[in-house]
């Protein structure tokens, strides 16, 4: 613990102007003069930008000149500049943990912009409180822990695949965990992709094959994360490999079946008597109880749906000598150690039937955009012929309803913009013009958000091709019970006229939401989410791939709606971030650990159960039972420290005497 004892505290206070950010509201000179009157303060100074090189030099020089034991900077926030000022403190020859910050910008000048007098008083309080703590700070040494040279990516959509490929290419062994039987995610359900209109499968399949072949990637499909323990560098992840009922050639070999295992021939599915809807085709095509989603799956291994299987054994017979089908298969659990992890959990479609006014699931010819993708796709359930579900006829007049459930502040809807529906609806308009002679797309929109590279040009192109744009949000849709045609009611807000448009089909660009298991998985990894359920990045601008849990990163739509270019870009960023600790080989942990004061510890062990991170245990020492902290596991949350009835737990950097001194300083106005 402490090396230099605080015999006599000598504190330096440095007040930052932050240009006019702080100085525009707070009287810097007054705060500085006040600081000089606070006990233990031996020097006070100010500067336009404390974070600049001259500002930092002021700190280092003052430490040497005044033989300081602690430094207080009154400026922005620790989140932004704690590392900066710690470095400056270290440059002056002090232990960097002897630095304390007073937040007088984000929590003061920015919020009290119109109350300069009160703001200045508040800044004085903040400085006095920080000095009280700085006077009691101790030298601390961060702990280094080695980093396991493996990584994990959870979610095998285009984001997860890209992240895994990058990590693998950087020489890192990577586990790619996907809950469904194949990788590919939503992108494999798409027909073409905006704005270039390349065929989605054509650009995705080679990547899927690369993932499957890459020697550094261990692909674990039909697998879910069950438990996560540990911390950056040393995560122990328990995985549930769901019973697939079909052996891969490797698994067959391990069982001594020579030349056996699934070859993807499909003989089993041909004989299987059980028919279920195929979720990949959104229920618009059948599959058997033993199935693959589509011909391009990776890995090409069949899966038994044990909820549907009647165990007739026909598939076992059909499979023959390959002996791939194992109807007695059970879930298996494995635990792997990884240094870092990336979550790429993707998204689901908002259940748009909840917005009754659009009539989805009530009117046959109202479909979602994802259903449209399957219907217009040559490998889809209709061979690429867009047909009306009610009568199989080809629709000619098609309405596209944008912002269906997005940008919606009612309880049934999502307040955010789903970000790619404008663009894919333009794409859909193009597709029907291209495929159906005489077809007219009517696009009901509020704003066309075509912000990406070549996106506005794409909008121009589709308008030029003949798509009709009606600026108004759809109010409701009704059905003609005889023709099953639909009436779309809205206001053309540019004309200021109500519109009643009769169409053959309506396509709802439904909002998206976090995928079903996101909540469970994020909790296992200790990752926060924002109000709307999307996973929370460490900083929206400066750390968009990281999370508040060290060693866990985010890629793709799970962090917020993202199209493919943005998903892939973030995936590459996340892969790069996740590889840094692995390449460094070790990580420094903030030394905010709990410490046991063994003389005071009664060995009651109650704290052991309080700790949310399993960092505490009881050990025998010199014939006594005392608590011991596994420092690398401790996150410094303070639960145990606040709890211990004997006051035997010392929270480094947030010790009780330090906190009490801060409270005293606030309440007593400095005259301790």
């Amino acid at each position, binding site marked *: 613990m402490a090396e230099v004892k605080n015999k006599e505290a000598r504190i330096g206070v440095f007040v930052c102007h932050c240009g006019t950010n702080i100085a525009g509201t707070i009287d810097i000179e007054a705060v500085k003069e006040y600081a000089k009157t606070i006990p233990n303060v031996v020097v006070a100074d100010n500067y336009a930008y404390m974070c600049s090189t001259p500002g930092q030099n002021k700190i280092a020089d003052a430490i040497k000149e005044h033989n300081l034991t602690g430094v207080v900077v009154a400026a922005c926030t620790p989140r932004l500049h704690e590392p900066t000022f710690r470095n400056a403190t270290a440059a002056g020859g002090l232990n960097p943990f002897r630095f304390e910050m007073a937040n007088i910008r984000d929590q003061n000048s920015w919020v009290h912009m119109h109350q300069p007098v009160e703001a200045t008083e508040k800044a004085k309080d903040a400085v006095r409180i920080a000095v009280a703590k700085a006077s009691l700070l101790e030298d601390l040494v961060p702990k280094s822990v080695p980093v396991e040279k493996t990584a994990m990516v959870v979610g095998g959509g285009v984001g997860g695949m890209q992240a895994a490929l990058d990590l693998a290419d950087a020489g890192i062994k990577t586990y790619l965990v996907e809950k469904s039987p194949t990788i590919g995610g939503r992108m494999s359900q798409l027909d073409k992709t905006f704005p270039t209109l390349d065929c989605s499968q054509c650009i995705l399949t080679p990547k899927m094959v690369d993932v499957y072949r890459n020697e550094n990637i261990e692909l674990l499909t039909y697998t879910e994360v069950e438990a996560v323990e540990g911390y950056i560098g040393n995560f122990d992840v328990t995985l549930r490999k769901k019973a697939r009922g079909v052996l891969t050639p490797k698994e067959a070999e391990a069982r001594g079946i020579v030349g056996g295992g699934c070859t993807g021939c499909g003989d089993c599915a041909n004989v299987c008597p059980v028919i279920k809807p195929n979720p990949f085709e959104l229920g618009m095509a059948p599959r058997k109880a033993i199935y693959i989603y589509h011909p391009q799956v990776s890995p090409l291994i069949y899966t038994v749906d044990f909820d549907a299987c009647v165990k007739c054994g026909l598939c076992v017979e059909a499979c023959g000598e390959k002996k791939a089908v194992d109807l007695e298969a059970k879930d298996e659990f494995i635990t792997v150690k990884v240094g870092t992890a990336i979550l790429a959990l993707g998204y689901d479609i908002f259940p748009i039937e909840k917005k009754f006014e659009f009539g989805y699931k009530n009117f046959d010819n109202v479909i979602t955009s994802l259903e449209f993708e399957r219907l217009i796709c040559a490998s889809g359930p209709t061979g690429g012929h867009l047909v009306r579900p009610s009568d199989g006829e080809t629709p000619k007049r098609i309405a596209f309803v944008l912002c269906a459930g997005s940008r919606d502040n009612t309880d049934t809807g999502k307040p955010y913009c789903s970000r790619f529906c404008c663009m894919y609806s333009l794409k859909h308009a193009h597709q029907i013009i291209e495929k159906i002679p005489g077809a007219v797309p009517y696009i009901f929109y509020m704003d066309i958000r075509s912000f990406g590279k070549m996106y506005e040009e794409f909008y121009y192109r589709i308008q030029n091709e003949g798509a009709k744009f009606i600026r108004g949000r*759809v109010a409701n849709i009704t059905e003609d019970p005889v023709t099953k045609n639909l009436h779309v009611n809205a206001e053309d807000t540019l004309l200021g006229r109500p519109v009643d448009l009769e169409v053959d089909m309506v396509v709802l660009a439904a909002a998206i939401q976090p995928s079903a298991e996101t909540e469970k998985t994020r909790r296992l990894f200790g990752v926060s989410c924002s109000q709307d359920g999307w996973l929370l990045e460490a900083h929206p601008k400066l750390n968009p791939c990281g999370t508040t849990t060290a060693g866990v990163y985010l890629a793709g739509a799970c962090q917020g709606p993202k199209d493919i270019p943005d998903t892939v870009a973030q995936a590459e960023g996340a892969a790069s971030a996740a590889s840094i600790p692995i390449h460094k080989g070790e990580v420094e942990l903030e030394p905010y650990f709990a410490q046991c004061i063994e003389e005071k510890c009664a060995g009651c062990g109650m704290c052991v159960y309080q700790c949310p991170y399993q960092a505490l245990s009881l050990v025998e020492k010199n014939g006594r039972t005392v608590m011991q902290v596994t420092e690398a596991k401790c996150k410094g949350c303070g639960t145990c420290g606040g709890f211990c009835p004997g006051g035997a737990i010392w929270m480094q950097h947030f010790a009780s005497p330090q906190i009490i001194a801060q409270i005293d300083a606030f309440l007593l106005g400095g005259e301790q």
Partner: protein
Amino acid sequence: MAVKKDYMDQKLAEKLRDRKYYAPDSNPEFLKEVEKIGQTPAHMCYQCGTCTGSCPSAPRSSYRIRLFMRKAVLGLEEEALTDPDLWLCTTCYSCTDRCPRDLAPTDTIMAMRNLAFRRDIVPRNFLQTVQLIYKSGHGVPNNDANRAARKRLGLDEEPETTHKYPEYLPGIQKILDHYRLKENADRILAEGE
């Protein structure tokens, strides 16, 4: 402020009137007052048109609820309160049901009607309705056709209202008197004669 040009011909003058929006046309207090009375943040309207698209009055008239929302936002008090369309809302609340910004356009309209009434701007039929309520407790009193229909359906001829219990009518009159609704209706109607 709008630039005035004089044409000899009055019709031509009206046709070629300056229609630009100038900042002084707007009274910011109007929005505040409308929001205070209507208890809905009209300034959050993003002009999507869902309200007009839902409105049963819109296809039958020039009434556009969305435009009234816009006028509230811009503080166009004069234009909003003197527009006879203000009185074409049926208070069906379809717009309130569907507004994606979770606003209550109906209540914005009601607030504007209140403000218009303060300035004696009310259509005669509304005032006559006030008189009818004062007299019978009903905006649309029972009539013989209704009574016959009720009888056919096995109902009492008179509904469970002041029609059946005229002793409650003074209570209703007290409320209308308290707000000086009847008095004002009578006055405005008389002035208009």
